[in-house]
Structures are given as structure tokens and as C-alpha cells.
């Protein structure tokens, strides 16, 4: 009896949700090109204009892909924008009146999107620049205390749970912009701000080569950020721990 009662309740619940999510009926003579849903995807239409359909920006232009990045990373960034630790006029404005709960909902929505990555593209780097980039990406520069990108961002650089972002297929201009912002102190994260330290140890040539190299790579469809590791990170990170 209990089971059937639960089933009935669940069914009624689903019907109620269905009714709630139903498309609103427009008045006579009016039509909407696409039905508006009472859904998270509909709410996030405000992000699509810059971050691409379903949060998938390409590696051209400036705006970063947000689909599939770890929820913890996205949440931290949304909060950083809200609290002025990152500066982008549009993002600062959009985030200003949002609760932590909603920021988590938004982060979760984009983290769970599983969309194909754009194809690899030519990076236009010289052999010497490629060598420089690959050295930093896979080995780092231990003598200057610069860890390899892969040591934190995952072996395939698709990110690492709970809060380490993937690096590949982001626009080169975006990556250069972020590393530059860390160097000048206009992008900040919770202390200890590991990327600020790393970025300040890089030369402008290294920033350019690494950003172009990372931007040109791709990832197989379905690649997810790797699971969190119990190993300590090579450098202390306030937002990645």
C-alpha cells in the first residue's frame, strides 16, 4: 500500500512539475519563435550570448568555454566576480545580486554540460616556442618554482575536481589576459593565490607561447575533469584545496 501511495504521490508530483514547467501561453496574435521554459537552461540564456550556446565558447574570440568545468571552479569564479576579486564589467554587474545558493546552481548547471570540444587548430608557433610551451606544460620550470600545468590541471589538462579548471580550447587571448591579470594583480583568488604566484614567475614570452599552445589543442568528446587526488598539489592553492 505504501509503495502505491508513494507512486501516486510521485506521479502527482511529476504532473505538478510538468504543469509548472509548461510553456506560458502567449496572447492572441503573438507568437514566440522558441517556447520559453521555466528551466535552468532558459535562465542561463543570459550567458549564452558571450559564452556560446550552452556555455560552449570556441577558442576564437575572447570568451572562455564554461561548459564542463568543475563546479567548484565555476562557483569560485562567480563569487570572485560578485566580490570584486575578478574584474569584468559585464560579469561584475550580472553577479552582483545573487545568493551563494544560486551561484552554486549556476556552477552545477554548466559543470554538468557535456558538449564536444572544438577541433584542434594551428597555433602558429615556431619550433622553439613549441619546445618552450611543452616544457612548461609537462615539466614546468622547477628551478624557478613553476610547476608543470599538468601537475594541477590534470594529465590531459581537462581540469581536476573539485575546483581546478581545464585549460585546453580556451581562446589564446583569454589565457594571455588571465595570466596578465594575475601578474598585475587585477585577477585574484582566495589566498594563497597560487596562479598569481606562478604567473608572476613567467616571462611574457612564456605567457604567449603557453597560451597559444594550450588554445590550439583539443580533447576527445566526453572528456571530464579528472577525479580529485589525495596527493598534495605542488603549490598551495586557496581555491583548489
Amino acid at each position, binding site marked *: 500500500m505504501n509503495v502505491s501511495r508513494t507512486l501516486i504521490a510521485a506521479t502527482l508530483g511529476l504532473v505538478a512539475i510538468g504543469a509548472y514547467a509548461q510553456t506560458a501561453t502567449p496572447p492572441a496574435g503573438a507568437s514566440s519563435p522558441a517556447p520559453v521554459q521555466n528551466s535552468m537552461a532558459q535562465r542561463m540564456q*543570459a550567458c549564452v550570448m*558571450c559564452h556560446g550556446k550552452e556555455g560552449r565558447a570556441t577558442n576564437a574570440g575572447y570568451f572562455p568555454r564554461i561548459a564542463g568545468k568543475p563546479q567548484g571552479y565555476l562557483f569560485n569564479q562567480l563569487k570572485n566576480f560578485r566580490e570584486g576579486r575578478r574584474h569584468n564589467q*559585464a560579469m561584475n554587474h550580472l553577479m552582483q545580486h545573487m545568493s551563494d545558493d*544560486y551561484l552554486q546552481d549556476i556552477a552545477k548547471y554548466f559543470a554538468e554540460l557535456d558538449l564536444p570540444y572544438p577541433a584542434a587548430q594551428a597555433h602558429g608557433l615556431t619550433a622553439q616556442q613549441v619546445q618552450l610551451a611543452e616544457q612548461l606544460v609537462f615539466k614546468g620550470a622547477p628551478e624557478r618554482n613553476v610547476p608543470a600545468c599538468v601537475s594541477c590541471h590534470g594529465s590531459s589538462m581537462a581540469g581536476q575536481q573539485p575546483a581546478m579548471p581545464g585549460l585546453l580550447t580556451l581562446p589564446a587571448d583569454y589565457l594571455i589576459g588571465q595570466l596578465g591579470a594575475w601578474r598585475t594583480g587585477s585577477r585574484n583568488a582566495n589566498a594563497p593565490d597560487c596562479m598569481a604566484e606562478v604567473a608572476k614567475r613567467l616571462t611574457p614570452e612564456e605567457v604567449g607561447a603557453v597560451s597559444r599552445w594550450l588554445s590550439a589543442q583539443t580533447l576527445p568528446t566526453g572528456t571530464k575533469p579528472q577525479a580529485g587526488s589525495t596527493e598534495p598539489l605542488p603549490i598551495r592553492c586557496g581555491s583548489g584545496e
Partner: protein
Amino acid sequence: MTNANKQRSWLRPLLAGLVGLVVLLIALVAWLNVRGEAPVEPGPANVQASASVIERGAYLARVGNCIGCHTTTGGAAFAGGRGVDTPFGVVVAPNITSDVKTGIGSWSAGEFWRAMHHGRSKDGRLLYPAFPYPSFTYVTREDSDALYAFLKSTPAVERPNQSHRLGFPYNTQAALAVWRALYFRAGEFEPQAEQPAEWNRGKYLVQGLGHCAACHSGRNFLGGTSLNAEFAGGLMPDATWYAPSLASPGEAGVQKWKRDEVVKLLKDGVVSHASVSGPMAEVVFSSTQYLSGADLDAMARYLAAIPQRDNEPREVKRADGDVFARGGKLYDQHCASCHGNKGQGVAGIYPALAGNRAVTLASHNNLVQVIRQGGFMPTTAGNPQPFGMPPFGQVLNNDEIAAVSSFIRQSWGNSAAPVSSLDVLHVK
């Protein structure tokens, strides 16, 4: 007698008269600045306030949205540092945490009350009315003491105050004294006996701590308000947004609204036919959503009773045909998927633009701001996952924003002046 001597003979008394007049004027201004001020009584400075008084003070701090100005983006609560941009320069809100060195830790309740009621600091200096003491002067001593008790209970944050960035003569106490002589008079809240208690409570909140008039009143070139401009609407001091008139049902007046709709707008930030944006979104986000149902209801009663003063019907110039057509095309391309091809919106999700008074205000500022910056309604308990609009300033230039604004202002029965690219450029 020589001519020179003759001149001197009438010059001297004239000069003396002038000097006398100036001295009298200075004395008058000085007197106007301190009239009605009793000597500061220390009040319950060293008395440990009860938890219930502190709690009431915390609630009153929400009503007054103290945190709104006295906290920087991402900064420690009440530690000050946010600049209020005015036509006269930037006034920086001070630290009001319990810190003794940089906050109000060393203030007495009496000094705090003098700041609220008379607009003077602990050391007697005149305060800038960016701190809305022309409204706070109506706050009772009891409420002031509760607020004081709450602020004294906040964690002490050592954050030195920054000086205001004002040009001459606005950076002088003399200029401030003249302003106060002209526009400020300390007052007591006087309940109107013929009105119910709720109405009086509403008036007390709206006129006092709520300081609605600080934004929603018209101001002259000296930043002064007059009684007949009360709630008449005006550009925000930083000239970004227009705070619509609370006296006009064609703007933000709620004389024709149901009371529970007004309560809902202040509580949730959205009702079926309206939502808050810009500075009012901030007010709902950090202040009114936390107010009790009874207080919101009281405010709604008073707001609905603000004497109606409709703005003169305006002769509306039609937008240029080409601009209008271009605006229509842009509307179909960028706006219609949410706001509907007839500006009908989607009930409870996207506001209708047809008949929406926020888009037909005489001032085009708010429409331009919303198009340019987009935005989400504030998150509230009643609207925890608000819908949002993209910042179209990323893809539309000033010409395009002007065209689509003109189209929206003159379509589906809307009738408001067209917007030019220059107008868009001038919106900060």
C-alpha cells in the same frame, strides 16, 4: 572737499554695512546649522545592550540598508570605503564597525544619535548629506540607540577612512553649512492622528530609515530637495539610473496597485507585471527582502497614499522611419525570443514591454542601462533562481541600442520619445 574724500565718505559706511551683513549671514547660517540641538547626552554608552535590542538594531540596519553604502564590493561588512558618486565629487562612506580606532567604537550613543538626527560627526563636523540624515532625522532616539547597539556589536574591522574626493568649494565645511541652512532641518516624526497606526508606521519607515526620498525625489542643481519635489523622481546622484517618481502611477507610483503586489515586489523583487532592476534591485537584495510582512504592508499603505502628481502628458515626436525599422529588425533578432514578438513577454518569466512603464519613462536612462548591461533580478526567498538578460552592450553599438530603444518606446501602444545615439552615449 576733494572728489576722493567725497567718495571715501560714503564708501566707509557702505563697506561697514556690507561687512555687517556678511557677519549676520554667517551667524544666520551658523545658527541654522545648530538650531534645536541639545547638548550631546551620552546615552546608554556603557550599558550592555540586551540581545533583543541588538537584534532589533540589526533589523533596523536592514531597513536603512546601511551595508549598501558602508561596505565595498566583497569587503568586510560595515567597514566603509564605498564611494558615492555625486555631481560634486565622490563622498566615501566611513567605517561604522565597532573598531575603536577607525570605526565608531569610541562613539557614544548620544554622538551616534546626533549624526543620525543632526548630521554631525563625533567631532562636531558637518556631514555630507550623501549620508541621508535629511531622512534619518525622523528616526526615533530609541531606534537610533538600537542601531547603535547593533553596530557596536559588529566585529571590529580596522580600516582607515579615506577622504572624500570633492572639488572646491564643496570640500569646505562652509559650503556644507550653507547647504544645510538652505535644505536641512532636523525634525521629529509626527504621526498623523487621523491615520491608522499601520499607515503611520509605513510613513515612518519610508520617510525615515528607508530613506526612499534620497533617490526618488527631484533635486536642484545644488543637490537640494524641496517639498513639492518629494518623491517626484530624479536622476540618481551618479547620473546613471533614473529613480522614478513614487507620486506618478505612470512611473513608479503604486497608487493603483493592490497592496499585496507592492509587498511582493519589495519582498521578492518581482511581480507578474513588474520587476526591480538597477539600484532598486540592490535595495531589494540587501534591504527590503528581509523586512517583516507587517512592515512591508505598512510601507505599501503609505506609498499608495502618496498624493498623486501625474507628469504632464508629453507631445511625443515619432522616431525616424528608418531608425524605427532598424530597431524593429534588431528587436526581432535579439529581443523577441524572450519578450515576445508583440512585446507581450512571458508571464512571471520575462517582463512584457508593451505597456511597461519602466520602458516609457521620460528618462531613457534605465532602458539603455538594462539593454547595455542586462542583468538578473535579485535572488530572494520568493525568487531564488531569477531569470536574466544578456548584456547587449557586448554586441550592440550605440546606434543600435538607440534604434531598438526607440522601437520599444513606440511600439504596441507604447508612447515615449525616441532615443538618439547621442542620448545613449550620454548615459554613463
